[in-house]
């Protein structure tokens, strides 16, 4: 998919652990892992809102759009 979740990058920048984030957001680590690994099919606005608040960032910091050509170049 062309939407990339950069949650792990933002977490590393904030020096925050996944466990701490899961406690703050009241979301299971399994669900956060689904989000990080890119297996998630959709993200609720409420979850995104909570993520942005907890990590003090914008939705654009967490989600990135990668064009198809860029994805192909990266794979090559």
């Amino acid at each position, binding site marked *: 998919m062309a939407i990339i979740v950069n949650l792990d990058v933002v977490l590393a920048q904030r020096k925050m652990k996944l466990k701490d984030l899961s406690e703050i957001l009241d979301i299971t680590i399994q669900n956060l892992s689904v989000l990080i690994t890119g297996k998630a099919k*959709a*993200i609720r606005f409420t979850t995104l809102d909570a993520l942005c608040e907890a990590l003090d960032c914008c939705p654009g910091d967490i989600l990135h759009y990668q064009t198809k050509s860029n994805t192909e170049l990266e794979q090559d």
Partner: protein
Amino acid sequence: MLASHDQQTQTTYRIIYISKLTKMMILLCGVIHTGLFLFFALLNVDSSKAKQSFGENNINLTAISEKWLSYANLLEDSGLNSFWILGTVDFVAQILVLFFMFRLFGLYEKGEIFRVQNCRYLQLIGITLFSYGLAMIFLPALVSLFINLFFEYQKLEIFYYFGSVELTQLIWGSVILVISWVMKEACLMKAEQGLVI
């Protein structure tokens, strides 16, 4: 939201409770069918002529559905055992449907409603019912053809049974088959729902 969740739990509880009852009834039905089949098989009698006496009362037992009785009589008049020809088909179809229903309601009883296995069982029930509907129409004709071609019995007439019973059977088969596909879609949606964070 909370009321909806409560309602869902109540519905699930209802499904579990009714499934438990249904499973028992299916089991009872299976036991009766198997008992009747074994009774006819062990006595090796015609499908429509087993008369059992209980004191002064006589009970007529038949191993086949009513629709095939006239054809069974025709077979018996030709010296053939209608039980082994028609009764086995009836028995196998009904036992298969009962078996799949037993497994399906067993899963419902455990509260497993949107599972791939449930869709599979529903699909198998649909296929069996539809095939049984086709067998209802064409089996007597196929049996007559087969016997006329390969055996030296009295020539049998070729019958096709097509009426409301057969049509209803085909409709039930198709309806359950379509429901199984709808359930399959529901299972996919449920799986996708699990990936919404």
